């Protein structure tokens, strides 16, 4: 088990490093001049200014060297020269072109909102999806079952941002059911924190739950055909206990696998959600940074954080797997 985790952490680190290299490569080997965005920021960008910036930022150095400097900043303090000099404490992810703040400081500000949103939404759609799917499997073939499948298909076929936008316009603005949809730090108290996130959670949770409902329904129907389910019934167990104790435990395993694979999708969902509900999180921050002029240090930081989250989520899923299924030994 420990051997497995160590091995996985090592391969995870490799994935994160490769991702950051890839982003670097895209940015610096791409067609546009990397100094251009910074140059564009303040007034007219003259060729002289561009040359000065290129020199100061070290953009004329080989990409590998720039990457090495960037990567070294993760473990030690460095000074960033963007015309003016900025101190950047380790872990240094660079200085934002836009705000001239340390990216790591901004990141510390933004991530709680995103994490709250993602985890809350994920719990909501897992619970709702699996519960509905299990209930549908229990009554499979009935009108309720077919109704659920149909509604789920309809919701899945509407793009997520349309649902989110409509929810925001009507539920928040027009009808005022959820007047406040913004992030309040947990330190302000659980009440405001949860209240502000309620509508985003619901939108994220409900729309994503539909595919989980259908998937867990399918898994459950399959599981209910297994021999050990018949054994459980033949013991004299109540139907609900057969389904929820014997059936669900087996049916949930593939659902968790899908959940791990879907995690990237969930992060995309939070980007939209933050954008639409005006939540100050990593997603919105990253999207802003992508607008011209591109704020490269912020983009690199969001991609890095995204990769780390996905890698950790998958590791957790694998560990969860071995907890649920005793046959899985993490070796």
């Amino acid at each position, binding site marked *: 088990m420990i051997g497995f985790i160590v091995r996985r952490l090592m391969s995870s680190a490799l994935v994160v490093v490769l991702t950051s290299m890839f982003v670097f490569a895209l940015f610096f080997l791409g067609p546009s001049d990397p100094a251009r965005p910074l140059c564009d920021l303040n007034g007219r960008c003259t060729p002289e200014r561009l040359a000065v910036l290129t020199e100061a930022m070290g953009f004329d150095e080989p990409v590998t060297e720039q990457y090495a400097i960037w990567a070294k900043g993760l473990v030690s303090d460095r000074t960033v020269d963007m015309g003016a000099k900025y101190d950047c404490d380790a872990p240094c992810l660079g200085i934002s072109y836009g705000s001239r703040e340390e990216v790591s400081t901004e990141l510390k500000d933004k991530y709680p909102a995103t994490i709250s949103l993602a985890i809350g939404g994920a719990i909501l759609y897992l619970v709702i999806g699996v519960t509905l799917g299990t209930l549908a499997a229990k009554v499979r073939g009935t009108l309720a079952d077919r109704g659920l499948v149909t509604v789920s298909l309809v919701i899945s076929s509407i793009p997520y941002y349309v649902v989110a936008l409509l929810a925001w316009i009507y539920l928040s603005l027009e009808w005022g059911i959820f007047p406040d949809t913004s992030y309040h730090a947990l330190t302000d108290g659980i009440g405001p924190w949860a209240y502000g996130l309620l509508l985003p959670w619901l939108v994220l949770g409900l729309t994503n739950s539909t595919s989980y409902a259908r998937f867990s329904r399918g898994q459950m129907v399959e599981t209910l055909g297994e021999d050990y389910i018949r054994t459980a019934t033949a013991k004299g167990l109540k139907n609900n206990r057969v389904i929820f104790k014997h059936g669900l435990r087996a049916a949930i395993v593939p659902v968790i696998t899908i959940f791990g694979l879907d995690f990237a999708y969930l992060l995309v969902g939070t980007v939209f959600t933050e954008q639409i509900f005006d939540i100050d999180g990593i997603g919105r921050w990253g999207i802003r940074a992508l607008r011209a002029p591109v704020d490269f240090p912020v983009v690199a930081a969001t991609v890095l954080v995204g990769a780390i989250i996905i890698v950790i989520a998958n590791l957790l899923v694998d560990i969860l797997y071995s907890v649920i299924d005793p046959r899985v*030994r993490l*070796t």
Partner: protein
Amino acid sequence: MTETQAQPHTNLRGTGADNKGDTLLEVIDLKKHFPVKSSGIIRRTVAHVQAVDGVSFAVPRGGSLGLVGESGCGKSTTGRLITRLYDPTAGRMMFEGQDIAALSRRQMLPLRSEIQMIFQDPYSSLNPRHTVGTIVGTPLRVHKVVPDDKVLDRVRELLEVVGLNPEHYNRYPNEFSGGQRQRIGIARALALQPKLLVADEPVSALDVSIQAQVVNLLQDVQREFNIAFLFIAHDLAVVRHFCPEVAVMYLGKIVEIADRETLYSRPHHPYTQALLSAVPDVKQAAIGGRRERIPLEGDVPSPVNPPSGCRFRTRCWMAQDICAKQVPPLLQIGPRHKVACHFAGERGSTGAVPVTLDVLGCNSHGDPVPGATRAADLETPGYSPDFDDLETHRRKSAELADR
């Protein structure tokens, strides 16, 4: 549709000269060890599953050898080694004088048509999206046995040979019953006119009444085309019916090999005796009482860490010191009878002195006797015309017993 008895065609290949005397396949000291990986940070191979650990046997041209044993004994692995679905760890497999164990995949290619396989499960071994014509015709096309425009004719012929309606070539496997599917598998295996068919549990997934149809078909096919069979099955009755010669495997080794009459009526290895005694016998029970059953305690040991010496000793009622120290050689004790047991003999007539001491050159505790030599060629396939019978071995061994 009613399945009819196969009416084998004669025009596929001549009935073949009756050359049963010579050997088609000789397997010598064949081994297959599967690695077991460690769970540490660096995954090393820490052990081996000794699935097949030194088996030797011969299959005569046009003859059949049965391979029986319980799950995990290595019989299926042996079949897969011979068809080179697995690569052997060690040993030789002489097919018509050529060692196919040493051939690369590319070199093996032309020989694939000579050695074909029939699988157990007629449901999963046929691609459900291919028609029967494609399934049976593919080997013909791949090996370019017949021109492309003649493939269909040949497929029809083959379907007829195995007792299917030749006009059903454009149907899919799911339109056939289990027995019919197994016939399709047989037709596919026959397409290339193989010299050796490895049949791995060919009837055990079928209903009783269908089993007999398929067994009869296999017998017809064998006689008609002079195909040699390695018939792997756990059903001792079916194997006895099909194979004049039978080998019994236990935990990766052959413990006894003999003509069927000897093996089934006068087994000399305790495991063979126990195995046979466990088979329920309808006729015996019907006319009163069952045969004496020899109960075997416990389970087969793990092939990762098999017992030292004789692998059966942990469950054997006759085991002595020597059984833990010396691996019993597969000793020829009759014109067509070999057995690997230090105390070989019919039940109730075994002696106190091991019978293997003369070839092993050791005393009855399994310790080497100074001056005595160990026989060299203990892993030869097939039978030798000159051999010592059990009494001779016993007498010669007695001289070494107390030294």
